[in-house]
């Protein structure tokens, strides 16, 4: 999941990057195209303009020569006057730096070589000299030969004029024919090319653009600068008449420099943007992950709370009926925690025919309350394992809890000990709400206003008592019941609770009804307090009697047997003897089964069939089989008569069957009387 999300994020960044880049590339391409087109236009325009300017000068030079042709022809007959023609050409045409009319050798016998040359010297004065020298040998010069060969005007290759100021020059030469059409001379005009450099130098369309001009034969007339951009756009044009090639070279950096700078800036901005997107995504993903981690944490805590609830619930007895083998107790209990774990508790267990039970409510809720609840429950179990008095149990619990109470939590607590053999209830209340006693009527159990547990060590807790009669019930609860609130913050209250408790039902039915009433009352309103109920219904059975090992309890046995005989089909006069047999058997257990001074119990169950009434006497004392005892001799004389042994003898005499069994750690004696 997490990988997938990262992948998605990555994909998103990738797509964004592609989109941005594509836009940039398209934009760049079109901008570049536009710039290139503009450069081309500008370059071509400049080139054309420059070409015209050059042409203009060339035209001037050519015109200067052509315009002098007629007069030169006219002067051919008088060659010495030709120097004046040359002078005129130079004088009348500013662009012409020098001019000559060179006779074709042999045209005139008198002047085999004749070439007057007029030129402007550095002062601007026009001077004349002759080119017909042996060193120069003008007939072999290009400017002379070429036009004669071609029969038309010819522009020479540029050259450096050694005599005339080291200037770069070129010469236009035109063949000159006489009236008969014979090639007679070559008439020329020299022009300086210094202006050319200046002219093309003016083509500063771009700051680093430059122009080169080369001649027909490839001589460079205007050379490129030494430092030049290797990537450049080159625009060419040429001047047909002179054979010059003009190139305008524009470095790409001049054309696209701005675009490239802008592109770089845009690229950087895009990168920054992408980086920001990535960072945002990352932080988003991290946040997402943190959120999911929180979710996981929450799940884990919920899971742990569930486990804690399980542990807490396993601390309180929650199998109902809790004592299925007993029919004198009908009990049920419930805890409904408001949060996952709560601070309420109940507990109960039976030791030596005494039912120890308690209900408590820890101040506060949730895990801290649950921990205190666990400690309270453990302390209760530990102390009541050896202590019978609820007052002393509560006092010791208070000392324990106060000593370790650093969190200032306290526990309201009710502890009761019900003697199941006689229904005697002793109890001690530590600040808890009084339980309800359900006898014929319903009333609060009178309780002392003792402090809750954990407030002050060394407190005295007053113990109270009450006889608990057959069919009496006690209803213990925490204030989570009466203070359960509905959506409009009304409390369930004691009246509703009492109403729900009316009538006689099983303990579980009572609890279900009360829980149902609360649930119906509160509806969906969330509950802020735990709700705990413990219901104990005491129904000492006519069919079972449990006595402690106290001879003083024999009258209860007598009453029990009386009842049993009444309910059986035995004649009334059988009662006395059955009483006697049972008393003998039970007395025997009371006096001898348990070590002297220790508590123990004896249980008498009565059962009947259509033909028999039988009593089962059970105790947990040391193994003892009364039937194994030797028969007493009832015919012995006074002196031989032993004091003991009469009991079992009477039992055998009265009952029709006497059987002993050792069941586990229990002695079981079964006495049966037939009808």
């Amino acid at each position, binding site marked *: 999941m997490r990988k997938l999300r990262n992948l998605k994020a990555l994909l998103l960044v990738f797509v964004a990057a592609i989109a941005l880049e594509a836009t940039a590339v398209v934009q760049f391409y079109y901008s570049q195209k536009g710039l290139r087109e503009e450069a081309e236009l500008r370059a071509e325009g400049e080139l054309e303009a420059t070409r015209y300017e050059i042409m203009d000068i060339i035209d001037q030079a050519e015109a200067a020569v052509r315009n002098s042709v007629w007069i030169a022809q006219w002067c051919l007959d008088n060659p010495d006057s030709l120097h004046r023609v040359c002078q005129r050409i130079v004088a009348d045409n500013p662009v012409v730096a020098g001019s000559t009319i060179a006779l074709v050798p042999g045209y005139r016998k008198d002047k085999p070589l004749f070439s007057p040359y007029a030129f402007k010297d550095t002062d601007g004065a026009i001077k004349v000299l002759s080119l017909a020298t042996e060193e120069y040998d003008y007939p072999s010069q290009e400017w002379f030969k070429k036009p004669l060969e071609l029969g038309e005007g010819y522009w020479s290759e540029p050259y450096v004029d050694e005599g005339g100021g080291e200037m770069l020059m070129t010469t236009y030469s035109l063949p000159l024919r006489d009236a008969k059409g014979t090639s007679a001379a070559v008439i020329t005009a020299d022009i300086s090319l210094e202006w050319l450099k200046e002219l093309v130098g003016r083509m500063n369309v771009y700051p680093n653009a430059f122009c080169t001009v080369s001649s027909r034969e490839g001589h460079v007339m205007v050379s490129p600068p030494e430092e030049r951009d290797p990537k450049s756009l080159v625009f060419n044009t040429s001047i047909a008449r002179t054979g010059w090639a003009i190139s305008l070279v524009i470095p790409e950096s001049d054309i696209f420099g701005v675009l490239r700078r802008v592109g770089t800036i845009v690229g950087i901005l895009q990168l920054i943007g992408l980086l920001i997107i990535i960072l945002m995504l990352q932080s988003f993903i991290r946040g997402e992950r943190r959120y999911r981690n929180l979710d996981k944490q929450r799940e884990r805590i919920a899971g742990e709370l569930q486990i804690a609830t399980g542990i807490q619930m396993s601390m309180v007895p929650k199998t109902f009926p809790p004592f299925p083998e007993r029919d004198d107790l009908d009990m049920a209990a419930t805890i409904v925690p408001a949060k996952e774990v709560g601070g309420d508790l109940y507990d109960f267990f039976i030791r030596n025919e005494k039912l120890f039970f308690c209900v408590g409510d820890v101040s506060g809720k949730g895990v801290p309350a649950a921990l205190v609840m666990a400690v309270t429950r453990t302390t209760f179990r530990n102390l009541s394992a050896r202590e019978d008095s609820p007052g002393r149990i509560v006092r010791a619990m208070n000392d324990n809890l106060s000593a370790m109470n650093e969190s200032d939590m306290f526990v309201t607590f009710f502890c009761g000990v019900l003697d199941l053999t006689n229904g005697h209830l002793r109890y001690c209340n530590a600040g808890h709400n009084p339980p309800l006693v359900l006898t014929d009527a319903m009333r609060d159990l009178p309780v002392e206003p003792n402090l809750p547990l954990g407030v002050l060590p060394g407190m005295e807790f007053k113990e109270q008592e009450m006889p608990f009669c057959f069919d009496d019930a006690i209803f213990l609860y925490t204030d989570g019941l009466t203070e359960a609130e509905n959506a409009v913050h009304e409390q369930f209250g004691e009246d509703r609770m009492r109403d729900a408790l009316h009538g006689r039902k099983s303990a579980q039915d009572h609890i279900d009804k009360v829980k149902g009433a609360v649930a119906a009352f509160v509806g969906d309103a969330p509950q802020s307090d735990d709700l705990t109920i413990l219901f104990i219904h005491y129904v000492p059975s006519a069919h079972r009697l449990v006595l402690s090992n106290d*001879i*003083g309890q*024999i*009258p209860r046995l*007598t009453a029990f047997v009386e009842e049993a005989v009444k309910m059986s089909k035995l004649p009334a*006069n059988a009662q*006395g*003897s059955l*009483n*006697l047999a049972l*008393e*003998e058997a039970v*007395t025997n257990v009371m006096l001898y089964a348990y070590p002297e001074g220790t508590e123990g119990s004896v249980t008498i169950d009565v059962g009947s069939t259509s033909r028999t009434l039988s009593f089962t006497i059970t105790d947990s004392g040391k193994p003892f089989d009364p039937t194994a005892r030797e028969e007493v001799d*009832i*015919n*012995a*004389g*006074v*002196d031989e*008569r032993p*004091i*003991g042994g*009469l*009991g079992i*003898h*009477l039992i055998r*005499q*009265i009952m029709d069957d006497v059987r002993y069994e050792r069941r586990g750690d229990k002695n079981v004696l079964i006495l049966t009387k037939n009808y």
Partner: protein
Amino acid sequence: MEVKIERGNAEVTAFLIGRLDTPASLEVAPKINSLADDAGGTVVLDCKELDYISSSGLRLFLTVRKAAAAKGGRVIVRGMNPDIRNVFMMTGFLNLFEIQ
């Protein structure tokens, strides 16, 4: 359970009233055992108002009877109801006492 002892010239009479079960026997044992002092003469155990007796009660009777045997006195058990007579019968006590 109540035990009333009347000492006459010729005999000592103990009136046993109520149920002589185990707890009662423990309770009245000192009183009945004191009859051993009179065992040289005639001791009457009046059972007209005795409702019930258990082996513990029988033991008290036997103690008195043994003392009388030792001192050569008589022990008369008087006025037993059928239940008690039945117990005496079952235990062979009818043979140990003079029954009236």
